[in-house]
């Protein structure tokens, strides 16, 4: 569903993302893991067509992001890191605007907005002005926006950041449910979250892929000294450390 090969993004002399390649199969829920500044958001932006790649190729839902951006954008729901919303708009009005842009037919728009509102638990809030919503509800509006038009691929950039524990649990539950019918690529730096949600993990550090494997394999693998890595945390630290050794 998502196929990335040799993707690179340079900002002047700085290489934010260096030659990364990975695949996400249909129906999978893949965690994109890495420390802050590792290049997670940059990669996601390139996948959604928000910024162009310097080199390399990204295919989403069978379309090339660089040459057929509109086809890709029709098939991807994207929740950016800092959920961008129009603060002056009413939730339901905002969602029906998104539905219009995402080519939901006029007659079906109301039902579609109703569907995502229900899915994201926004029933009580649909007539509220976005600026008056709490952070948790704004995050849900962002998620609802990504779900409009029922796109096969969901790209969620740190969907739980800044939420309180209860909201985190709720949004994780929603994501888990979504994974049943969508292919999900999810970025985070919260390790237990990945363990709870994902089938497979891609660990990225300093713009490079440090490790990618299924949850079981990663936590079962042995470290350099022959010790068994019990948890994802160990696997993550080992991957990040190994990368740093190469650098030196």
């Amino acid at each position, binding site marked *: 569903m998502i196929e990335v090969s040799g993707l690179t993004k340079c*900002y002047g002399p700085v290489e934010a993302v260096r030659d990364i390649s990975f695949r996400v199969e249909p129906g999978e829920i893949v965690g994109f893991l890495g420390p802050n500044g590792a290049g997670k958001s940059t990669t996601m932006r390139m996948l959604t067509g928000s910024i162009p790649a310097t080199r390399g190729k990204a295919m989403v839902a069978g379309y090339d992001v660089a040459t057929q951006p509109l086809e890709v954008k029709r098939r991807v729901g994207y929740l950016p890191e800092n959920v961008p919303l129009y603060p002056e708009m009413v939730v339901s009005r905002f969602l029906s605007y998104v539905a219009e842009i995402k080519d939901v037919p006029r007659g079906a728009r109301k039902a579609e907005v109703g569907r995502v509102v229900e899915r994201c638990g926004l029933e009580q809030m649909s007539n509220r002005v976005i600026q008056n919503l709490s952070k948790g509800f704004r995050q849900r509006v962002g998620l609802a926006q990504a779900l409009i038009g029922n796109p096969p691929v969901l790209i969620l950039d740190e969907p739980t950041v800044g939420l309180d524990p209860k909201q985190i649990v709720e949004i994780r539950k929603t994501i888990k449910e979504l994974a049943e019918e969508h292919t999900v690529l999810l970025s985070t730096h919260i390790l237990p979250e990945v363990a709870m949600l994902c089938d497979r993990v891609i660990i990225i550090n300093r713009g490079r892929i440090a490790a990618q494997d299924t949850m079981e394999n990663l936590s079962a693998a042995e470290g350099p000294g022959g010790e068994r890595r019990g948890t994802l945390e160990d696997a993550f630290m080992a991957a990040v450390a190994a990368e740093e050794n190469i650098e030196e």
Partner: protein
Amino acid sequence: MKNIWAVCRREFASFFVTPMGYVVVGTFALITGLGFTASFIFYARVTESPSTYAYQGVPDFEETLLSPFLVFCGMVIMFIGPLITMRLLAEERHRGTIELLLTHPLRDRDIVFGKYLASLGMLAVMMLVVAVHLCVVGYFVDVEPAVLVFGVITVFLMGAAFLSMGLFVSSLCSTQITAGTFTFGLFFVLYILGALSEDMSEENPAPPGWPEGVRGAIGFAYGIFRSLARQLPLDAHAKEMAQGVVAPHDIVYYILFAAFFLFLTFRSLESRKWRS
């Protein structure tokens, strides 16, 4: 087309769910209303005793009141226009909502034309204010209705040209304040240029002692600069048009002016693809 309309509607509505739209239209109504009243009173006095004001006989209504008033409305748009255009793209960038625009299935043309149409919508609301004034004129004075309609169109075209320039500047900036200030600065430079050009002599500024070739070159460059300074300012084309004198080149000028800056806005949006 559908998406242009969607972007336009959202943008236009956002003017009126925030105080912005009301402030802009209100200020415009206040300033033009005062200007209208003042010039109407002045014209009434002149008509009563033309000789006191050094006129011989009652001065021409269109030339003395209508045209200056319409050009004045255009000038007010010069001051208020930056307030409309500064937010169009700069604010999307500032709030990060540009990321939504760029990741939703929208083409650049949907964004640029949608935003521009929304600002033209604001302009149309402001034209309603001008139309009210002109209805008053039509009621009290014996003027061809066509002249009045054409007057509104003139001010609209002038405003549309201002707004296209503002949209372009907004596409370059990442905050509203920079966009607004920069736009206003550009408008003002154009205006001052127009005022200065009236004093520019037609003669070649190079001293007569210089070699013929150099003089010719300087004269040529000066000639181009002079005619640009005379023709480029937006108000230069409005004066005659506002009297109901329809000259196709004036209308074409405004349309080309707007088209040029819309073209630059497209290039500016597109630059995200090659600028990192």
